């Protein structure tokens, strides 16, 4: 089991979700985050002040997958989230010891397989 954490641009979310769907990745969790990397900073003006916004809006995806899906998922994200400009984000693949499905208490593989697949 792995947990894939990806930081992407908000405006690529649509494409990434679609591509993941096609790759048969059905479960995921999304949150809004702010990121700092090598991007050119945005500038804001507030009355007398000019301020730099060093943190850019990003979206964070968290996807628990079983081993065979790891590469598929990473590739799907790499392909759909990339624009070629600095600031596209990162993917982290992290080890997971156990996954539970809260509804049923199922564990590991069973917990990340979509319900439909079981029946």
């Amino acid at each position: 089991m792995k947990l894939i954490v990806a930081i992407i641009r908000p405006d690529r979310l649509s494409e990434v979700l679609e591509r993941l769907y096609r790759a048969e990745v059905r479960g995921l969790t999304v949150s809004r985050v702010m990121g700092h990397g090598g991007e050119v900073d945005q500038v804001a003006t507030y009355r007398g002040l000019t301020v730099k916004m060093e943190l850019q809006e990003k979206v964070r995806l968290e996807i628990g997958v079983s081993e065979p899906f790891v590469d598929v998922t990473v590739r799907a994200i790499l392909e759909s989230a990339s624009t070629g400009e600095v600031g596209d984000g990162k993917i982290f693949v992290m080890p997971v010891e156990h996954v539970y499905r809260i509804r049923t208490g199922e564990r590991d593989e069973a917990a990340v397989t979509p319900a439909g697949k079981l029946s």
Partner: protein
Amino acid sequence: MIQAAAGPPAIVPADTVWILVSTALVLLMTPAAAFFYGGLVRAKNALNTMMMCLGAFGAVGVTWAVAGYSVAFSGSGRFLGDTGFLFLHGVGLEARGSIPHLLFMAYQCTFAVVTAVLIAGAVVERMRYGAYLVFISLWSLVVYAPLAHWVWGGGWLATLGVLDFAGGTVVHVNAGVAAAVAALVVGRRKDYGRQAVLPHNVPFVMLGAGLLYFGWFGFNGGSALAANGSAVQAFVTTLLAPMATLLVWMALDAMRTRRATAVGAATAIVVGLVVITPAAGYVSPMGALALGALGAIPSYCAIVLRARTRLDDSLDVLAGHGIGGITGALLTGVFADARWGGVNGLLHGRPVQLGLQAIGVLVAIAYSGVMSLVLLRLVGLFIPLRVADRGQGVGLDITEHGEEAYTNGEGALLLLDRRTDPARRSAFATTTTDSTRERA
């Protein structure tokens, strides 16, 4: 009564008070529109949308005082005013009707501003701010002022007998058509059709609708230019029509989607107000209810259909104001009732009025359509009209205004430019050196 006591042109205090109040009310419609429109866009374009409204106070307001008023209301030409009132020359406290001339100018000024502002709804989330301001300033001078002259300034449409109590054609058809043209010329938003663009703050939309309802009493009620029966009639029809529109709209919504939406309700109130605008002083209160109820249907359908087309009239100015204005202008020709103000319409045995109304509408569509197109192309020659896709992705609040509508607590998320000089970061987390700024 009081009028009877006065000589030829005399100022009546009660009339003056009513038009003072009405002017303030119409002025409030511009911030109201800012909230109505601002709530409907995405958060990253909220300020830009609202600035499209508030900025018009500067651009259109000054244009009007300097030249627009003269084009619309000086002299007795059939097609255009003369230069008599340029720079408000000769516009003083003497009577025009029963109110001071200066007040009449101010009242009309608030109309010019809010009419231009309506156009914004069609080009939000992509039009460059500078180009927009230049366009609406010119538009108020070249499109709005002449049309106002034809209908209210003693021009040829008035002579012909076209009825337009408070601006169904001059304001709403005119702005609606210009908006559609602008949407076409500026082009679709980069995400249009691919993503659902949802309103970021529906309560703001409802605030806008509530304030518009309130302000519209000045718009329609004040158009009587006196505190007389006509004002009362226009006021009350303006109260009643949107109520009927709202009821019908909620019913249509419930039939189509099983739920009455809040954005729909806010839209319904505005459409009801638009529909009653040309008719306000000409129809009976029950006629107003009928007009409001009927008026819901064309705009409702237009909004549903428009969403399936490739025309990115983003906030449905054409469907709301254009179609609403046309419906209202035509129904004025149907419901006009001589017992309630002047002439009869179709229902009271005078079908010709419906034809006259149709002429008024067609003239407004043609003139506004052609001239708006010409103006946009002209402005486009000098200033690009459109924010590049990348900028649209970032949001116009940042690209056009260098601000964000909502920043969350702890300005802590803001730091100095570290690359230039990390050592300097000791005292201030903000820099004011303009030279190091970069365009996002």
